[in-house]
């Protein structure tokens, strides 16, 4: 046998002995190769490495990369010790793990070794020291601080506690010493939740703090016995709750001083808050707010003041808010106390949690009876004024016309113009009144149509003739491609045509042609009024059909008007199932076109 073969045999035998020894030890041993693969692990190490997760005694999960042997492999330096929670069976003591790099004789890193050892009392102390809960050991019977961990020491940063008697080296704790002595004497534990203590946070700075704690007497193998204390500071939590409470009180005060009534509902539709204004509003209509418990109670109350017509549940803002929608509604109600009608404006919005789920609703209501009354007076005023003006207009126009006709040829051209101007302006006042009344009807949703067969060609002929009689500078031409009869309100259609022709003439100050055309297009009768006037400024087009909107306000082409014409025209056409639009090319001139359905409509 060669000499080196003998040496090899001897080395292998020695390795087997070492391996057997490693397997026999209770500590875990692991050997890692350079690439991190496990070259060797004895039974205790295998058991630990096979565990699902390694966690610290404080519950933190340790990643494999944090283990000291893995760190050693990466850095080439010994890895920091890590204390681990005992294994899943819970029978073992805490474990501390270490790791060191292994170098070849030439100094190259070739692997790492690690060990899992039963933690020493010192390791346990380190772990306790870092625990997030305050721990103190008071040696009896004098109750002297024997041990405090970092968390406990941090409660009184101004004094080193260890070695000092409890009563001299402590916070301002009335009655606490007596209680501790009782714990010592009786062996009964003492627990406290959110107890307020004065704590010296900095030299001379005594601040209230809240603590939750347990004190128990423990027997030791070697006397004297001690009191073990576990203390958790809950100041932030308690202050947070107190702040929340203060905020609630403050908000309630704000909400109570609001003029609008506020009612808040939770997700189960129960009423959680009624502010003072809402209290008053409800009391004013003879409702006792205290009897209202949920949305249904409130709705029943409202039914009681709407003169027998139950409110449409689906349209009520509070119902819609609980379904996630924000809305506002004006309600007319009967006030049994004043025996008069009132108006309320009610709005509601959903309340959502941070995830966006609806957790309730807030409803805001105000009594707008006075506003409603003013609105009604305004409507009444317009109606009376319009009505009262019509009779004088009738006579002014009538007599001017009569005068013109009876004088006939004896009038000078200037006198003739004057009389025509009288008639024209009487018509104008009348038209303004009609538009005001119509706009009001439209606003109130009371535009009523009296439908009958209407010969559109005949109607257009009549209206253009009448306008032409007053617009001497303009050449109004009517083109009818085919006779059309529609079912419509003839009077209203006349008004639409008067409005369109009046605009065409008004905004073509120098005269010129105005072309009116009627044709059939599919199922629609289509009428267009085309002028060669000033056109419509691009930026004002979007709002042209709005109430009181005038495209030429503050322009050189402001020839007056109420701004109601197109608003009224569109509403009339839409209530017939028709529509209106226009084109106004940059070069000037406008064409307004409307269409009406030929067939019967639903």
């Amino acid at each position, binding site marked *: 046998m060669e000499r080196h073969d003998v040496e090899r045999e001897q080395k292998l035998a020695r390795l087997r002995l070492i391996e057997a020894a490693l397997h026999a030890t209770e500590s875990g041993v692991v050997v890692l190769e350079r690439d991190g693969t496990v070259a060797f692990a004895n039974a205790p190490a295998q058991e630990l490495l096979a565990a699902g997760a390694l966690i610290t005694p404080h519950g933190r999960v340790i990643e494999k990369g944090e283990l000291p042997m893995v760190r050693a492999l990466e850095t080439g330096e010994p890895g920091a010790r890590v204390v681990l929670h005992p294994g899943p069976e819970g029978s073992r003591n805490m474990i501390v793990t270490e790791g060191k790099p292994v170098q070849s004789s030439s100094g190259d890193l070739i692997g790492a070794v690690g060990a899992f050892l039963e933690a020493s009392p010192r390791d346990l102390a380190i772990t306790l020291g870092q625990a997030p809960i305050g721990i103190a050991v008071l040696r009896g019977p004098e109750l002297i601080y024997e041990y405090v961990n970092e968390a406990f020491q941090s409660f009184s940063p101004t004094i080193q506690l260890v070695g000092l008697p409890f009563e001299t080296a402590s916070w301002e704790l009335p009655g606490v010493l007596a209680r501790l002595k009782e714990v010592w004497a009786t062996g009964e534990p003492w627990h406290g939740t959110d107890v307020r203590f004065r704590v010296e946070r900095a030299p001379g700075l005594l601040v209230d703090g809240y603590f939750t704690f347990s004190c128990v007497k423990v027997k030791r193998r070697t006397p004297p016995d001690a009191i073990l204390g576990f203390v958790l500071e809950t100041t932030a939590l308690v202050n947070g709750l107190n702040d929340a409470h203060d905020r609630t009180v403050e908000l309630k005060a704000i909400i109570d001083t609001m003029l609008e009534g506020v009612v808040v509902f939770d997700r189960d539709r129960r009423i959680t808050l009624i502010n003072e204004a809402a209290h008053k509003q409800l009391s004013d209509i003879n409702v006792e707010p205290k009897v209202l418990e949920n949305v249904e109670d409130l709705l029943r109350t409202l039914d009681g003041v709407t003169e027998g017509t139950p409110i449409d549940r689906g349209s009520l803002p509070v119902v819609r808010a609980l379904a996630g929608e924000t809305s506002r509604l004006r309600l007319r109600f009967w006030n049994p106390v004043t025996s008069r009608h009132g108006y309320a404006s009610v709005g509601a919005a959903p309340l959502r949690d941070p995830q966006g789920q609806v957790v309730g609703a807030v409803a805001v209501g105000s009594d707008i009876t006075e506003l409603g009354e003013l609105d009604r007076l305004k409507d009444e005023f317009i109606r009376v004024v319009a*009505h009262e003006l019509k009779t004088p207009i*009738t006579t002014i126009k*009538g*007599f001017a016309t*009569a005068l013109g006709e009876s004088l006939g040829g004896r009038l000078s051209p200037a006198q003739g113009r004057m009389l025509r101007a009288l008639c024209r302006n009487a018509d104008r006042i*009348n038209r303004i009144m009609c538009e005001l009344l119509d706009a009001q009807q439209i606003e109130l949703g009371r535009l*009523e149509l*009296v439908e009958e067969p209407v010969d559109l060609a005949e109607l257009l002929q009549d209206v253009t003739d*009448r306008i032409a009689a007053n617009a001497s500078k303009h050449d109004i031409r009517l083109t009818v491609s085919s006779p059309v009869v529609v079912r419509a309100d003839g009077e209203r259609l006349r008004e639409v045509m008067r409005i369109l022709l009046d605009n065409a003439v008004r905004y073509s100050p120098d005269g010129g042609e105005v072309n009116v055309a009627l044709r059939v297009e599919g199922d629609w009768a289509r009428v267009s009024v085309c002028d060669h006037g000033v056109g419509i400024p691009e930026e004002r087009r979007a709002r042209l059909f709005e109430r009181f909107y005038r495209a030429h306000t503050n322009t050189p082409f402001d020839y007056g008007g109420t701004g109601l014409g197109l608003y009224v025209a569109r509403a009339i056409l839409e209530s017939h199932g028709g529509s209106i639009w226009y084109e106004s090319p940059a070069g000037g001139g406008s064409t307004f076109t409307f269409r009406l359905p030929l067939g019967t409509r639903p």
Partner: protein
Amino acid sequence: MMPTVLVIDDDEDVLDLVRTRLEEEGYGVVVAANGRQGLEAVAATMPDLILLDMKMPVMDGPSFAAEFRRLHGAAAPIVVVTAAEDARKCAQEVGAEGWLSKPFEFADLMSIVADHAREQR
């Protein structure tokens, strides 16, 4: 002989205007300042047509129409002449044969008078 028209209106100027124009066209015209006077006029002579204002003191248009129908049935057609918002509706409500909105064109006045007065003959 031309038809007779009874004009009931509380506005003197309107009465004057309508009377002048109708007389120019050859109609016989009787005027009344309110419904009460109107009833007295028809009791004296039944006209061929009644032009009736709605809003008047003493007795208004609707009351006149109701009373007239009760006493005289369809003895003469009624045409409502009103400044109210919806003359058509007024006419329907009082059971009148025709309607004319104030302010009106003479041509319209003449044609409606001619239509209803002719029907009567």
